[in-house]
């Protein structure tokens, strides 16, 4: 259960499946989209709150 | 009784309000065959989807300024002050709109249906469905337009259209049911049930919204 499913980093990036297709591109693009969206939203809100606080002061 | 007559008078004398949507409906239904190849089969396949969308669009256009005019000229204020039940008046208003726009559109829709499928049975069966669905469309668009009263009907449509999708699914299924000779009356009862819920609730919600607008 806690063993790596991949033996090397390049394998983890490519994620070659049993049917021979490389699924890495899908998995990692979703990964970056999700994290990108999260980070972006956090940054936007933090920034907006900071600007508004300055204005109110 | 008075309210019924007043609303009738208001709409009947405004021909762009009721004749306009009907003519637009006829135009859409006449224009669509021009976009498909001149073969009856193609026409028949596309006909019903065009029909439902056309009804939807026309009801959207018809309700565009249903409350806006009364709001702008101050009639709504008078209504709120003088009537016991605002929701009843709103219900009557929607009924009049249905009688002057929904019913003619349903009749014309069935005639087009007869013309394209050349089946009397189909036209006959589709008529009540058109009547009920146009009434439901009207109610929901009225709700959307009452929310966005002064902000234009594009926003109203944007927030109402998602609410209408289930109805479109049902309408699609009705046509299949008629074609296969299946449980048509079950669908009719389903639609009637939905309509009876909507007839009661939507005017209540709209009257709440309108009071909030005037506040």
């Amino acid at each position: 259960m806690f063993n790596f499913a991949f033996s090397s980093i390049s394998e983890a990036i490519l994620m070659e499946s049993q049917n021979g297709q490389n699924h890495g591109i899908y998995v990692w693009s979703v990964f970056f989209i999700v994290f990108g969206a999260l980070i972006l939203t956090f940054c936007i809100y933090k920034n907006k709150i900071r600007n508004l606080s300055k204005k109110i002061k | 009784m008075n309210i019924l007559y007043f609303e009738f008078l208001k709409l009947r004398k405004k021909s762009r309000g009721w004749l306009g949507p009907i003519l637009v409906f006829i135009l859409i239904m006449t224009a669509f065959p021009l976009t498909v190849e001149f073969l009856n089969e193609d026409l028949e396949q596309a006909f019903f989807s065009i029909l439902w969308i056309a009804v939807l669009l026309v009801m959207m256009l018809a309700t565009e300024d249903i409350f806006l005019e009364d709001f702008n000229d101050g009639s709504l204020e008078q209504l709120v002050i003088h009537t016991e039940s605002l929701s009843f008046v709103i219900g009557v208003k929607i009924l009049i709109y249905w009688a002057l726009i929904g019913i003619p559109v349903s009749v014309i829709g069935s005639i087009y249906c007869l013309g394209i499928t050349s089946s009397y049975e189909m036209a006959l069966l589709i008529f009540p469905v058109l009547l009920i669905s146009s009434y439901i469309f009207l109610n929901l668009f009225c709700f959307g337009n009452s929310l966005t009263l002064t902000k234009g009907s594009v926003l109203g449509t944007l927030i109402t259209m998602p609410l209408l999708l289930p109805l479109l699914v049902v309408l699609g299924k009705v046509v299949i049911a008629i074609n296969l000779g299946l449980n048509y009356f079950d669908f009719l009862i389903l639609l009637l049930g939905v309509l009876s819920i909507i007839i009661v609730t939507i005017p209540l919600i709209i009257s709440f919204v309108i009071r909030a607008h005037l506040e």
Partner: protein
Amino acid sequence: MIMTYLIKAENLSYKINEKKLFQNISFEVNANSALHITGSNGSGKTTLLRIILGISKPTRGSIETNLTSDMCYLGHKNALKQYLTVEDNLILQSIQHNKPLDTLLKDIDLYDKLDVVVSNLSFGQQKKIALLKVFLNESELLVLDEPCVGLDGKAQTFLTSFLQEELGKNKSIIFSSHINLNIDAKSINLDN
């Protein structure tokens, strides 16, 4: 005779978007009396009238009414359908076509305008038609928002004398106006 109030307001305040419009307005309107609401533009005269009518709710304070009939209200918007004729508009306002109406129409020079579409009339003429409802009212309380705007001198005197007459008929009036009408009225000012 026991004086009972028709409308009693206590400490009314109103806010829009957290901004104060007016605060702590109190008044009482009895039968046979008039109340003149004054104040500069944007001081909340119309809002106060709408609170009295029950359309808007005050942010703070209370208002009690003691009426047996609907109020008769004429606001900035005259509630006329622009695309209908004067006659149809009168039907919509449940005004019967009878003798008193005819004499009234002659008094305000509108007798020959009955079958004219409202949008073809001038602002003042439209205002007069809207006022017909006030002239023929059967309410205890008249609420008028700037009734004189757009009226010519003749119509203004007609209106004032009508209102003064109404006061004698056990009716009350609440109105807002920049012009001082010749009516015996208490007045409150909304400016601080």
